[in-house]
């Protein structure tokens, strides 16, 4: 039921962290996975960790001319696409009163506009084959908000809303569109927190620990699998109980 043998997937932001684990988990479940990101070396590391032949498709998601070539390249490399994981994201934190237009624009472009373009691009093939799984990696911040992250929160809330609208449109074609909203996930960024910051965060998480990238990846495999065929327009909250919504 969780087997993805024969399925073809594209994962953005597959160079590290959650994206790498998602790519590994999809491949472990049997899928062929195309890896996209900006750092070729890191993508090659992901491919090596997977241990199978993975097309490596470098793409700067802030450049729409590059974005619009990504899906055709993945379809050409894999012979089509069954699964799209919009995982790539970035932050440019600043308090609202200090936030520059460029900080807003850059985060919206990568986190939301690129996902819109990629979603639109995969639809043609998925409609024809009457099968598709689109998964957006959002954030608890898109649901709850977070000071200093007005741009990031807007982009992630936008992703969730966009995916719900698209889920309505294509549900009759056996294409599901869902989002995953991770809470605090252990990463290079959380490694840098000092003890006091860590304590403050833990106080908000009933599970009393950070999540792991594997725990997010498992949810992506679930949503891509036959087990989740009747789930669409959903946002799966993966946050250790931080926000029970």
């Amino acid at each position, binding site marked *: 039921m969780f087997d993805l043998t024969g399925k073809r997937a594209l994962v953005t932001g597959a160079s590290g962290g959650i994206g790498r684990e998602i790519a590994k988990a999809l491949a472990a479940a049997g899928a062929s996975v195309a890896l996209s990101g900006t750092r070729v070396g890191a993508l090659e590391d992901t491919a090596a960790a997977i241990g199978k032949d993975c097309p490596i498709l470098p793409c700067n998601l802030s450049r729409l001319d590059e974005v619009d070539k990504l899906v055709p390249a993945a379809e050409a490399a894999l012979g089509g696409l069954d699964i799209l994981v919009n995982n790539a994201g970035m932050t440019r934190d600043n308090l609202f009163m200090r936030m520059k237009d460029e900080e807003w624009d850059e985060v919206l472009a990568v986190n939301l506009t690129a996902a819109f373009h990629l979603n639109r691009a995969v639809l*043609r093939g998925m*409609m024809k084959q009457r099968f598709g799984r689109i998964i957006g990696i959002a954030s608890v911040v898109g649901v709850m908000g977070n000071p200093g992250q007005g741009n990031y929160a807007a982009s992630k809330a936008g992703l969730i809303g966009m995916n719900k609208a698209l889920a309505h*449109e*294509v549900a*009759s*074609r056996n294409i599901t569109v869902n989002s995953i909203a991770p809470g605090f996930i252990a990463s290079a960024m959380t490694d840098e927190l000092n003890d006091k910051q860590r304590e403050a965060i833990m106080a908000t998480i009933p599970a009393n620990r950070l999540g792991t990238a594997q725990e997010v990846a498992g949810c992506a495999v679930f949503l891509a699998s036959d087990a989740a065929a009747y789930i669409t327009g959903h946002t799966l909250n993966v946050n250790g109980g931080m926000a029970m919504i």
Partner: protein
Amino acid sequence: MSDVADRVRKIVVEHLNVDAEKVVEKASFIDDLGADSLDQVELVMAFEEEFSVEIPDDAAEGIQTFGDAVSFLTKAVG
């Protein structure tokens, strides 16, 4: 029957899974042939592919029947 009409009919029959006899000039994709709004978009995209033309949104809205499609595409490729 023109070549354009034959090609359009083939696409409609395949896509909407209907009998060719039902695809007559006045047949409305939605009212007579069971299409939904997504089918209509897919049909327009299939026409674009088959005839290598661009069908702008306002023109696509005017293509409601088999006859509409044939006359638009006849002009477009002519």
